[in-house]
């Protein structure tokens, strides 16, 4: 079923000049494989349309189950010359969590996924009772 990455992943973002740099972390190997399949550089570029003007490159870091995205012309000219409030792209990491991916339902269990909100299982289907 389709869920937002916010229900699955940790993320952090930073900057170098006008590039934004976003890391996306899977909680387990099964979800990592879903991310590798679903969250392609093309999809990320499409997702950030209107906010990011340049190319997107993706790198894989299997040791920590992470994908790294580097987004060109992403910050309105670069931290110290950008007019944006988020001139350093610190919130870009949360923006990627809006992206929707198709995940097999058996991966969406309480045991497999740590909570991603103080309000509980936000963004996930209700827990099935055995």
């Amino acid at each position, binding site marked *: 079923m389709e869920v937002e990455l916010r229900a699955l992943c*940790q993320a*952090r973002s*930073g900057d170098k000049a006008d590039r934004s*740099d976003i890391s996306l972390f899977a909680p387990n190997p099964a979800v990592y494989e879903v991310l590798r399949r679903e969250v392609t550089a093309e999809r990320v570029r499409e997702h950030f349309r209107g906010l990011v003007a340049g190319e997107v490159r993706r*790198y894989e870091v299997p*040791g920590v189950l992470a994908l790294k995205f*580097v987004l060109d012309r992403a910050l309105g000219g670069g931290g110290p*010359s950008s007019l944006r409030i988020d001139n350093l792209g610190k919130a870009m990491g*949360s923006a990627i969590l809006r992206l929707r991916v198709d995940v097999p339902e058996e991966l969406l269990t309480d045991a497999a996924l*740590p909570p991603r909100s103080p309000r509980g299982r936000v963004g996930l289907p209700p827990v099935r009772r055995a």
Partner: protein
Amino acid sequence: MRSVRIGGGLGFYGDSIRPALDIAERGDVRYIAFDHLAELTMAILEKDRQRDGAAGYTKDIGPLMRELLPVTHGRGIRLVTNAGGIHPDGARAEVARVARELGIRLRVGVVRGDDIRPRLAELRAAGAELRHMDDGRPLEEVVDRLLFANVYLGSRPIAQALEAGAEVVITGRTTDAAQFAGPIVHEMGWAWDDWDRMAAAVLVGHLLECAGQVTGGNFSGDWWNLPDMDRLGYPVAEVFEDGSAIITKPPGTGGRVSVDTVKEQLLYEVHDPSRYLTPDVIVDMTGVRLEDAGPDRVLVRGVRGLPPPPTLKVLMGYADGFMGVGMMGYAWPDALAKARMADRIVRAQIARFGIQAEEIHTSYLGYDSLHGPLARPVDEEALNEVYLRVAVRTRTREEAQKLGRLFPPLALDGPPFIGGLSGMAPVRELLGLWPALVDRSLIEPFVQVDVEEVG
């Protein structure tokens, strides 16, 4: 197994001093390192020096030393920082002044040679083109507007200063991670071409350089469960002979060190994790493993290193115009519609009064200022309030100021139910960044390490 313990005392110019004191008092460390410099910091320091020839270093070095030296001096804890900015000798004079006040005598090392602005003509004559490394533009486009030009130096001169007995080492633009890798390599006696161990030293530096960001700050996991964030502990690493390291923090401090907090920092601002370029080594993080080693303890291992590139990175900053900004808050009902109407008023006035804006940027705080076009459309009835913010990019300070003056009249002349107009926001100078590459052979022979006793 031999090891060394080192703390990360601060993550930027303006960060809190207290956590470094926790590390000095309870961290059981031999070294505390401080990364003071960000891209924007160099421009701020250059402006400081234009106003006062004795300035040009981060001004927190005085208060920092006043707090720390009484603790670290007696315990043999050595301090490393790039707080020297564009004037490391000025920073040493400040440390000397504080030391005299405290009645302490100590050896302070200074590293020079990163500031290439005085050498630009000579370097270009020697064949350094200094083209923009991302798009190849020639330096001529901005050379008349340069505010600073600094090469990122590595950890070797820092280690040299420590070898010469410096208790405090002050550099200009050495890399963030070098503040840590220098002491680690010095202490462990590793060879400079032992690439895997060099990578291990740089990786530890990378994990600690943003201080609180590895111990729970900006943590995107279960941030609401982190304990005692009002007294967040800054990180301490214990680095072992085989290049592995434990990341931890002083006892009795807040935050958390876990695999999940450490991995977020591992990849932070690293573009290609298989080739993280530094002056000391190319770091390959793809094989790094993080393991839970007890409460607030994470074992890091598996990093690999390759010989560094023949070039060093230069970062130059140039004056890139001005930003004028204005803000006004609008209350429910129809807060967003009111803010949009005010935006139309401001934009029409920009045109009518002929304000020379090269770019106009509108955002609605409380709705889309952080995610822009990715922000999800909301039920406008549910929005309690929205702030309109309009920013313009101009060539001159005067043009930027004109934008700010359009906002106070909105208090009486625009849509109803306003709040939050707090005078005119100051105009901000914008800074363009110009990264470039330069041959090591043109830089490294000019690096100076100088240690002297002060106090």
